[in-house]
């Protein structure tokens, strides 16, 4: 999967309105091609990779900690909270600049996710589908408030770039914040076993001497920060956090140590693939990536649901299991 990602990454650098070929790039030295390359194409690629890795890992963490396969940044009110934070910064402190905006988005998305998880844990739903439904409702309420205030203060246009995810505006100098996803994902990898243990339940964590609440809050904070950084730079991109971890778990199980890298790679691959499609279908114009992700994502999600309906909880085995055991 890594190799495939590398190949498509390199190829994607040469997809765009202006044709660039390698020989021109190498020979011309400081020509326009090189500038486009350094200022637009490479930043765009890096932003895509960070988004894919970040959002899928954020989804993985949230699913584990909430013990629910349908929870993700888009169904756990995280994205909407981040947008609400951005709105507050646009309306009340317009001169705050990028960093201030980011901090507000961080704060609100962390807070929103905490409230959601606290609520879900308080109520203790027996039905797993209710949890994401509550998240979606909560997110929609927040979204409604955001839209209302945005209309009132006439910032809907400004805000719309944060609603529909798109990589078309990424250029060197304005996107570096998404790199934050990388250290956060590394932290997530270090704490992977803790997240797994907490995902097994409160009693299970206590038995192994793991502080349940602390790890829960830490994990949700990481997931919310990754999401907020992506939303502030790229905009809303749904589905990745929901489907990518589910697809990987279908093949590899839920042990985060074993699945985190695959989840990250597949997430990056998925976003990159969608972006290439978004750039190519109506050349020289491009579609917002959110559109492509939405179409492909929902199809994949439906396919996955149908698979689960037909096969129950059975995992897909890549290697053949030992004979005569339950895995057959």
């Amino acid at each position, binding site marked *: 999967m890594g190799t495939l990602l590398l190949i498509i990454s390199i190829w994607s650098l040469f997809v765009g309105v202006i044709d660039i070929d390698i020989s021109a790039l190498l020979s011309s030295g400081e020509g326009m091609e090189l500038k486009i390359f350094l200022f637009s194409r490479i930043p765009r690629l890096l932003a895509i990779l960070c988004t894919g890795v970040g959002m899928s890992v954020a989804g993985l963490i949230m699913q584990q900690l909430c013990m629910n396969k349908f929870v993700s940044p888009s169904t756990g009110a995280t994205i909407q909270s981040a947008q609400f934070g951005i709105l507050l910064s646009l309306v009340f402190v317009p001169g705050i600049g990028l960093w201030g905006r980011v901090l507000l988005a961080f704060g609100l998305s962390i807070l929103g996710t905490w409230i959601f998880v606290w609520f879900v844990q308080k109520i203790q739903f027996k039905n797993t589908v209710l949890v994401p439904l509550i998240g979606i409702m909560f997110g929609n309420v927040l979204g409604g408030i955001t839209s209302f205030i945005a209309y009132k203060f006439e910032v809907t246009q400004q805000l719309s770039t944060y609603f529909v995810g798109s990589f078309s505006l990424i250029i060197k100098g304005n996107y570096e914040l998404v790199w934050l996803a990388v250290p956060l994902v590394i932290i997530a990898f270090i704490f992977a*076993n803790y997240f797994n243990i907490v995902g097994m339940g409160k009693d299970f964590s206590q*038995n*192994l*001497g793991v502080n349940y609440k602390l790890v829960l809050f830490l994990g949700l904070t990481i997931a919310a920060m990754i999401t907020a950084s992506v939303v502030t730079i790229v905009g809303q991109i749904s589905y990745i956090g929901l489907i990518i971890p589910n697809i990987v778990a279908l093949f590899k199980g839920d042990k985060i140590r074993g699945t985190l890298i695959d989840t990250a790679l597949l997430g990056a691959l998925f976003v990159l693939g969608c972006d290439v499609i978004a750039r190519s279908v109506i050349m020289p114009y491009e579609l917002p990536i959110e559109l492509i992700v939405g179409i492909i994502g929902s199809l994949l999600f439906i396919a996955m649901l149908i698979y689960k309906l037909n096969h129950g909880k059975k995992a897909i085995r890549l290697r053949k299991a030992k004979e005569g055991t339950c*895995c057959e």
Partner: protein
Amino acid sequence: MTIVDLNKKYDGKKVVNSVSFEIPKGKVLSLIGPNGAGKSTVMGMISRLIAKDSGVIHFEDKDLAKWKSKELAKKLAILTQHNNIQMKLTVRELVAFGRFPYSGNRLTKEDNEMIDKAIAYMELQEYEDCFIDELSGGQRQRAYIAMVIAQDTEYVLLDEPTNNLDIYHASNMMRTVRRLCDELGKTVILVLHEINYAAFYSDYVCALVNGKIAKFGTVEEVINKETLAEIYKVDFEIIYVDGKPLSVFY
């Protein structure tokens, strides 16, 4: 381990009322009693899953509340029925978590040997790479016990380990409990609904009624006509099988 004057209230109702007893080392102790007697609450307080209102639990000459979670996890293991059973972990991955208090993220060679031994002890070798959510209830319970064995603790607390198991698996589970004590020298404390499992497989029985200890003693002292009738308000007949008192009720 000594428990002194344990109390717990829920919404103003006393569910555990000044409970004191001593847990005999290297023996199997069962907590029995009717529904709502406070068995699981007492167990929860011993394992620190539930905060106690008052009272002290002495554990190895130290107040249990003062133990560090990680250190306690090497001495005392608790298994309840509230685990997430949808998690796709393989049996081996689950058992490996038993070593978490010792090695954290990195498993040493010694840890892997312990894991192998625990899996072999519970005869789970052929299921080692199976996901626990695809196993039967009995197999899954064995996998959890294997994890507790890998955790290598002196004390093992089991909250209703026979719950949701059929007779075959439940009696197997109880035999395993006996082996944990006899072969591995562990002190096992159980919460049980089935009086006869308690009677047949444990050394001591603690009967709770309405949050108070009705009777604490050896199996013979508790499992007899008079005491049981007093606890459960039902007539019992006692028959002896293999020298152990078993109750018959209808």
